[in-house]
């Protein structure tokens, strides 16, 4: 019995060596990763069936009447049991791929087994199918683990030979029943030991191969992440030559390749590293790279001739084109080059794949950021352009009336109006201006109003000079004064007074305009129907200086209204006038 055990273990070892060698081939390792496509399922089942058939070929002949001999024979005779490690591959197939793959592999192996012949070919074929299906179900039951750890695989593998033995006993011909029982008892224990151990080792081999595959991916992804992190500051919504050169330099160092080129949609923007003049900035990529760039797909070029480089002395021999995309739109590409016969490894290609994904995402984010800024800017410009036309027309009417009655005053008004308009032009060209400048504009406006309403309006200015360094959105103060004039006083026959106060409170500046007019209607105070002028100011204050700088409206207890806001003295923003 011990001799037979060793013999079977040796045969199992041969099968395992073959399995180990196969997992060194990358294509087969990919297969072990658990492919989801139907086409691959058949391939996987076929592979395991092949191994099972190989196991049958490696089996030991156990004659019904006598002790087994170690010699290998081509085909078992009609009174010989062929026992071997065939169940091992079927079990592993079922454990890895589920009942379908296990069943198909078992069925194919069973067909081969019937073709081979032997005393128990039918029983062995049935056992093979059942083994595959049951192993698949077992794997489903332990679904939380991708692959069974070897000790458990040994435990599961124990039952494959038991099933085989039971079926051999069941299908034994009545005439030879006693001989079959004797043979089963001779080879049963060795078979169980050898097969279950082999299943354990096989599952360990598969587990190691899978782990290796996963680690390769993980390492490449980690590198890609690190590189993308460093490249982040260099990515803009559109690549310019300068940023491209820096990006190329960075990538060449980090990815450890011979050269890196950064392209926009058509041309090379920057090239860092080795390479003949045909690769320098301004040229267009050629050969397979041009095609990859045009289509925006990851392209691997291993043949130097297909790089499209005319110079036979060019050191660059292989390349991977990493496409950069923003959604469906091609933005450009990064080309990694290898020199002097080196070719990109699978890890390199994984790295390129990761880079393509990460860099594309960064570009997309940068573009989205830029678009957001642009939209905000346009909204502000639009708001600022709404202010003036009605005021302009009123004033021009006033001046046209004054020209005959009071030419001097008319002339003064024209000058002030010109000043006012020049200052208000800046409201469309600057985001923020010094408060002093905004105050000038409000004063020019006040002069015009004073001319129009004469003694009916008295405007008093209380200004802390130190507060005038603060910055505000252009045209903040003037609409406040205009509001007081229109809604506060113009409605009153006897006129009224307006106080404009600019006060420094520690680090903040309070801008306040109060009048003694009729006050705000309730609807304006509650914010239901704010006036266009004030809501415009409020929106710009909030957008440019923050929500705590918003505009406050109040009616005073003694009559009249006040409008105020507080802005910081120093915002840290540079203001150029």
């Amino acid at each position, binding site marked *: *019995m011990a001799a037979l055990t060793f013999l079977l273990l040796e045969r199992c070892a041969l099968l395992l060596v073959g399995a180990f060698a196969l997992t060194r081939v990358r294509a087969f390792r990919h297969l072990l990763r658990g492919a989801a496509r139907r086409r691959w399922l058949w391939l996987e089942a076929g592979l395991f069936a092949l191994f099972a058939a190989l196991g049958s070929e490696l089996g030991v002949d156990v004659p019904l009447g006598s002790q087994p001999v170690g010699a290998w024979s081509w085909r078992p005779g009609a009174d010989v049991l062929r026992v071997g490690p065939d169940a091992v591959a079927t079990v592993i197939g079922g454990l890895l791929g589920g009942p379908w793959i296990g069943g198909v592999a078992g069925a194919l192996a069973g067909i081969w087994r019937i073709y081979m012949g032997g005393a128990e070919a039918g029983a062995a074929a049935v056992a093979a199918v059942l083994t595959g299906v049951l192993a698949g179900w077992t794997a489903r*039951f332990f679904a939380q683990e991708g692959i069974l750890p070897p*000790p*458990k695989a040994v*435990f599961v593998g*124990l*039952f494959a030979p*038991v*099933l085989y*033995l*039971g*079926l051999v*006993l*069941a*299908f*034994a011909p*009545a005439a030879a*029943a006693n001989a079959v*029982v*004797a043979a*089963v*008892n001779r080879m*049963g*224990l060795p078979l*169980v*030991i050898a097969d*279950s151990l082999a299943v354990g080792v096989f599952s360990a081999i598969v587990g190691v191969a899978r782990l290796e595959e996963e680690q390769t991916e993980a390492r490449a992804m980690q590198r890609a992440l690190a590189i993308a992190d460093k490249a982040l500051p260099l990515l803009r919504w559109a690549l310019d030559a300068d940023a491209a050169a820096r990006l190329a330099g960075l990538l060449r160092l980090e990815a450890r390749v011979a050269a890196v080129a950064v392209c926009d949609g058509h041309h090379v923007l920057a090239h860092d590293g080795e390479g003949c003049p045909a690769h320098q900035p301004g040229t267009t990529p050629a050969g397979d790279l041009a095609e990859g760039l045009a289509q925006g797909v990851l392209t691997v070029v291993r043949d130097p001739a297909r790089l499209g480089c005319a110079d036979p002395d060019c050191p660059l021999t292989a390349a991977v084109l990493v496409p950069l995309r923003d959604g469906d739109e091609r933005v450009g590409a990064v080309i990694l080059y290898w020199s002097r016969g080196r070719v990109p490894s699978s890890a390199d290609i994984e790295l390129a794949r990761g880079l393509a994904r990460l860099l594309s995402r960064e570009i997309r984010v940068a573009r989205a950021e830029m678009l957001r800024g642009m939209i905000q800017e346009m909204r502000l410009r639009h708001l600022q352009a709404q202010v003036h036309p009605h005021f302009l027309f009123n004033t021009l009417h006033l001046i046209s009336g004054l020209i005959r009655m009071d030419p001097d005053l008319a002339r003064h008004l024209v000058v002030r109006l010109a000043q006012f308009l020049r200052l208000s032009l800046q409201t469309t060209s600057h985001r923020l201006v010094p408060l002093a400048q905004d105050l000038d504009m409000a004063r020019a406006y006040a002069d015009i109003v004073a001319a129009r309403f004469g003694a009916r309006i008295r405007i008093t200015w209380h200004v802390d000079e130190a507060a005038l360094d603060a910055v505000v959105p252009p045209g903040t103060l003037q609409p406040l004064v205009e509001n007081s004039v229109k809604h506060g006083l113009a409605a009153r026959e006897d006129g009224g007074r307006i106080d404009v106060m600019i006060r420094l409170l520690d680090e903040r500046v309070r801008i306040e305009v109060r009048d003694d007019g009729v006050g705000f209607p309730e609807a304006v105070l509650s914010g239901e129907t704010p006036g266009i002028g004030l809501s415009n100011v409020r929106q710009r204050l909030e957008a440019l200086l923050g929500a705590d700088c918003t505009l406050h409206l109040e009616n005073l207890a003694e009559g009249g209204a006040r409008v105020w806001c507080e802005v910081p003295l120093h915002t840290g923003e540079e203001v150029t006038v």
Partner: protein
Amino acid sequence: MTADNLLFLCAVLAGTILISDWSARSRPDPDRFYAASRGLTGTQNGLAIAGDFISAASFLGVSGAVARTGFAGLLYGASFLLSYPLLWLVAEAVHRLGRYTLADALDSVFGRPWLRLAVAVNTLVITIAYLVPQLMAAGELAQALLGWPRVAAILCMGAWMTLYVVLGGMLSTSWIQIVKTVLLLSGAGLTVLIVAGRSGWHPWAVWQAARGVWAGTQGAGTGNAWATLSTHLPIVLGTMGMPHILIRFLTVRSEPAVRRSLATATTALAAFYLLVLVLGTAAAAWGAAGPAAGSDGSLAVVVLARGLGGPLWAAYISAVAFATVIAVVTGLLLTATGALAHDILHQGFGRGAGSASRQLRLARLCAAGLGLLATVIASTAHGLSVTSLVTWVFVWAAATHSPMLLCTIYWRRFRPLGAMCGMVAGALVMSGWVIAHLQRGGPVAGAAPPGVWAILAGLAGCILGTFAADAWDAWPRGARRETEDAAGGEAGSPWRR
């Protein structure tokens, strides 16, 4: 002891301890220890229930009985199977009400600490009384197959099985039971297939041969109708009072899963008893039920396997029988642990205080202690027949738990006092009979326990207790208030869902 025996036994022991180790490695907490975090699927739980239920008495005992007596053995199998449809009556309610134990379920209905304590004590009695014959069977099996001394075999088996529960709790218990069910069904199925093949694919011939054997022993196994009813009614009703079966319904998350568990378990059991029937018949036909099968014929299947497939197959079938015992023992031990550690010590005396890790440590200590206790009892209690002990336990469960559970679930006006009285009445009748029985000089073969009377006593206790409680409520107020304050209970209906 042959190499075959050793290999398969070691494989089963190593495989199951591997499962326990794996369950122990995942983050342990009381929820995981007692209820597997309610994480099993319906199918898994169904297989585990079957594994929990099919004891060595079922596999070896029923097949042996069929082999020896034919019809009487079949009746045993049918009773065991018939008890499963009745489980539908209580399974969902127990799942809804309970957390870790049967006492939890009763407590969440009535909220009476003394009732929880009583149910827990009764659970302990049932499980330990059921553990003893299982361990005895394991010892006898080990003695017969491995040639160890009986006491040593029981001690080894007991210690080894305690290890499973201490390590992995409910999770490892469940997986061991699932593995056991699959092993048992496939092993029995393969043996039946071999039987069919060996009979030249003419099953009728086997039947004919077996009838010839039974004709010789006709009349030996069939008593009068009353004794038969008294033996089999407790089996039919007792399953729904078996705490180790009931707590299995606490390991799934939803009621559809409970129904699926029951359907799976019933299917597995039906298949199993059918296979056992065939195996018993075949054992009779092959003459495997002779003296080689032990005094009560419980080794008939093993003898049959040796005849069919030689020592190798006999070794495999004995390993499967071992797995059977292991699974049942772990399930029982876990139930006893829940009753002692959770109900009595933690909820009862500890008032529910203490951190999760302390609770867990307590549970493991209790598991070890109870395992040791049961092992010691089993190793000293020789002379008792395994089958009669199992029958007593079923009667006890059917008399104490079953009427109380049915009343709790289906009688809206049922009172905690009724539950208590029912349990006490059933227990009194049964224990009185056992004591009288033992005093008359040990178990007498064929002396049927008073199954029907005990069950009726339990039911009467439930009804009378409830009426007594109602009458108590109808008394003048002043007298009642004092007792209520003393008991700390609440007035009005105890029906709290």
